[in-house]
Every structure is written in C-alpha cells, then in structure tokens.
C-alpha cells in the first residue's frame, strides 16, 4: 500500500491545501442542508439529511489535499498520487449513510401513516395537549 502521507517525517507540520472552490461548496452545502433539516415538511427534512451526508463526504474528499498536478491513486499510473485514504473513508461513510437514510425514510413514512400528516410541526403539537395520557 502506498501511503505517501505517512512517509512524512513526523516533525513537519501537516498542512492540507484545500481548494477554495471546494471549501465554499462544502460550506454552502452544509448551510443548505441544515436549513432544510429545520423545515416542517418531512420530504425537506429528508433531503436535508441526504445533503448533509453529501456535504460531509465532500469535506472528507477535500482532506486529501489539492489534487492539481496529481494522478489517480492507481499503482501503474505513476507520478505523484492523490492521497487515497480519505477516499476509502468516504466509501464507508456513503454506505453507512445509505443505511441510515433508508431507515429515516421508513420512519418518516410510518409517522405519516400514524399521524396522517407530513408536517413535523403537527407531530408534537398534540403531544403537549395530552401530556398525561400520552406517556407509558
């Protein structure tokens, strides 16, 4: 396994050069996803969470540093490879968030079936009216 990052002598400071466009994009995605998550409609909350995981994955990708002048991390390609470790992390993270998103979809669907509403504000409104009998 070629991991050039680990061959650096430990006394040097590590600086990850992140491209400015990526940084702005990540910030924008996070902002949009948090905004969506705080909305009332279930569908928008769902989209917000999906975008949130996308934003995090993009952030991880940017942690491998500036890709200009570097090649893909394939052995035969030669030249200076991009750091492949964050890409492995992203793969795992994508799979995990896929599972959680699936669960989230089904939970929201079940909430829709039970409460007959797709608005998150409605979910907890009846909660406050029947405090006593609601809890087991």
């Amino acid at each position: 396994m070629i991991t050039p990052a680990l061959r650096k002598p430990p006394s040097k400071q590590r600086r990850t050069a992140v491209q400015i466009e990526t940084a702005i994009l990540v910030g924008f995605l996070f902002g949009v996803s948090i905004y969506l998550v705080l909305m009332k409609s279930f569908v928008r909350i769902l989209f917000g969470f999906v975008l949130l995981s996308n934003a995090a994955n993009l952030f991880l990708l940017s942690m491998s540093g500036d890709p200009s002048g570097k090649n893909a991390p394939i052995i035969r390609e030669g030249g200076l490879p991009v750091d492949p470790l964050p890409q492995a992390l992203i793969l795992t993270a994508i799979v995990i968030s896929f599972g959680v998103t699936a669960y989230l979809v089904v939970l929201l669907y079940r909430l829709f079936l039970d409460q007959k509403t797709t608005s998150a504000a409605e979910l907890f409104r009846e909660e406050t009216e029947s405090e006593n009998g609601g809890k087991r």
Partner: protein
Amino acid sequence: MASAILLLLWRKPSKSRRILGMVVTGFLTLAAVFTAIDLAANATRLVLNLGAWSAPLGIVLVIDPLAAIMLSLSGFTALTCLIYAVFEGTPKAEHPLRIPLLFFLLTGINLSFITGDLFNLFVAFEIMLISSYSLLTLEADDRNVKHAFPYLAINLVGSTLFLIACGIAYSVFGSLNFAHMASQSSQVLENPLLPALAGLLMLVFCVKAGLFPLYFWLPNSYPILATPLGAFYAGMLTKVGVYVLLRLLTTVMPHELNYLHQLLAWMGGATMIFGVIGAVSRHYVRGILSFHILSQIGYMALAIGLFTPLALTACVLYIIHHIIVKASLFLVGGTITCLNGTDDLNRTGGLWKATPVLGICFLLQALSLAGIPPLSGFWGKFLIFSEGLAAGEYVLVAAALIAGILTLYSMLKIWLGAFWAPAPESGVRLDDPRWKPLTALISSMALVSLAIGLGVEWVFRIANTAALMAMDQAGYTRAVFEVLGKGGL
C-alpha cells in the same frame, strides 16, 4: 458478532434462541471480567492487528484495563436484560428481531470499546446507532414512535460531525490510528486546527453522552422502550459516549487542552443540575429515571473535566457503579409496572407491603445513586468531591452536592409514590407469576452493586490502573507498535 448473525438466521422466536443469547452474553461477561482483572493486575494491554496489518496501516483492536472493564459491564448488562426479558414474556410475545438487534447493538458497543482507530470507532458507533434506532421503534406503539425522531435526527447530525472530525483528525495527525495520534501529541500542539478538532470531537460525544445542552433527546425517547431494552440503553449507550470522551481526551489528545477540560467540567455541572430538576418534574417512573441518567452523566463529565489521575479513577469507578445501578433501577421500574399495571406514580402504590424485597432492592440502589456510604455510589462521589475541592472548583462541588440532594428527593418521589402509598383500587397484581423471578434478578443485581460498594478497595485498584494506563500515552503507543505484521513501519 457471530452470535448476532446466528440469531438472525434463527428467525423464529423460540426458547432455545434466548438460551443461546444468554449463554453467549454470560460467557462474554465472564471472559471480560477475568481479562479485566488479569490486565489490571499485570498492567498490560492486549493488542490485535486485524488482518495482520500492523499499525498504523491497519486497524488495531486494543484491550487495556479500561476497555476490559467496559466490556465486562456491557456483557453483564446485556445478560441481565436478556434474563429479564425471558422472565417478562414468552418467546412468542416478543418481536423476533429483538434479540438479534440487541446483539448487533452489543457488537457496536463492544467494538467501540476496544477499537484503536478513529474511523473504526465511527463505524462501530454507526453499528450501535443504527441498531439502537431500529430497536427503539421496533415495539413502540403508534403514539410513541414520534419520540424516536428527535433521537434519530440529533444522532444523524452527531454522526456527520464525527465524520467531519475524522477528516480534520486525518489532516492534523496524518493518520487515524490512536497510537499514531498519541505519539504525535507533542507536535500537534502548535497546529491551529487542534482546538477545533478536539472541540468537535468533544461535541459529538457530549451529544451521545447526553450533556447539557444537548440532552433533550434522551428523556423523551428512553421511556418508549420495553423495560429490558430500556435498562440496556440506559446503562450502556450514554456510557459509550463517556468512555469515548475518556479515551480520546486521555489516550489520544495531548493532555494540555485545559480550556476544553474546563468546558467539559462546567457542562457536567450544568447537566447535573438540569438533569435532576428534570427528574423532579416527571411523575412516571421511567421519566424520572431517564432524567437521572443525565445528572449522573454530569458527574462523570465533571470527573473527566477535572483531569487528575484520581479524578479519572473516580470517573471509571462511577461508570462501574452507575451502569449496574441504573440498569437495575430501570428493571425495578419495569417490575413496578408489572405489579401495578402502570408507570404513573399517581396511580401506583402499596408495593412495600406486598413485596418488601423489591422495596429493599430499590432502596439500596436509590441510596447508592444518591451517594450514601458505604454503598457504591458514595465512593465515586467522594473522590470527585475531594478532587474538585483540591482543584479549587468550589462552585462545581456545590452544584454536585445540590444535585445529590435533589437526586435523593426524586428517588423519594418514586419511593413514596410506588412503595409507601396505599394500594390503588385496582390492587397490586400479586397473582401475576412474573414478579417473583424478576425480583430475584433485581436482588442479584443489587447484591452485585452492594458488593462493589463494600469491596470498593479492590475495585478502586482496578479502576486506578485503568485510568492510569489510559493516561499513559507512551505505553499505549509502545504496546500497539510492538505487535508486528505486514507492512510494518
């Protein structure tokens, strides 16, 4: 984990499946307890390179005394919850996926205790969280399912933040292996990203542990669980957050992050107070107990925040005490529901006359939680107080004392409501055959807790070794890098 898959294949809920589950957890507990005692006596660590790739290229599993203690506790809690579930209902009544999911949960929890790699910790956390989401809504009725949603949402955000923190950690440290990160602690102190990273990691696990002000998901979502599951969640899940905080702040991060430790101590203090005030406000047993988890977590956070070796020992001691006591208190709550038909303290009663044994057990555990000597809760609290006074944190110690008094008060609420109040019109359901074995189980847990309280000298030694070895970054690094494998650096 193999047992989880086995149980999954064995789909029909049957008695033999439960027996397999209990045997496995019993074995796990015994193995972990012996490992803990052995490791603490010899002050060593067990290191396993997964796939024989040596660190820092491969993923390492490390069991040091702290991890072994946590493993034995998780095994013990799972065992008692399984036994409780066996006595509580027939195999047909429970959901067929409950035991496999519980084992997946256990897998995630155990993996997060023993992993030596930050991203593996993320994976373990996700295993744990997804199993906990599924278990939460598995048997919840329609009215209660919506309480799972805040739990899900905040844990999703927490996971995303964890992922970001992994990325930043990779950028700061150059690897995600704990030992490798520990060996670089002195060099990374100048890196401006380090406070951000440490703060972010702390935030993630404060959410998981349930510290102020991020604990709002806990008191609403834990009561919807069936009793044995609720006991397991209450005992273990938040403690995983505390354990990871402990592990990261002592073994991985440089020890000089004083401002973060201060912040943690103050958050702990606030959690203590708010948790206990919340506990006093609820009037059904599980609600009170859920809020209690928060205030006790506050004690543990305070102990970590004080960050002296003795304070960390106090934290470990407190974790040991709290997991057992909290789980057994939840089981007591379940038995109260079983006997009285309801959770609501306004409608329970008459249990002291009916089952004095249950009353004594509850009393022991409740007083232990409040911190009465010589029960197990006292020693942890005493150490925290003495360390806090030594560090000069008078406000926090005062807050801890107030929280202790209010804990006693809220426990009194349960006592008066359920045990000393006159029996309700529906009467106490003594003809229900379930309460006898349940009470027996709870008494054995209370006995374990009593033994810890009376034999605390011995437990203290183990906890002290665990805390000291957790702080010993050089020893940890040496132990991990010693084990050679492919691609050795």
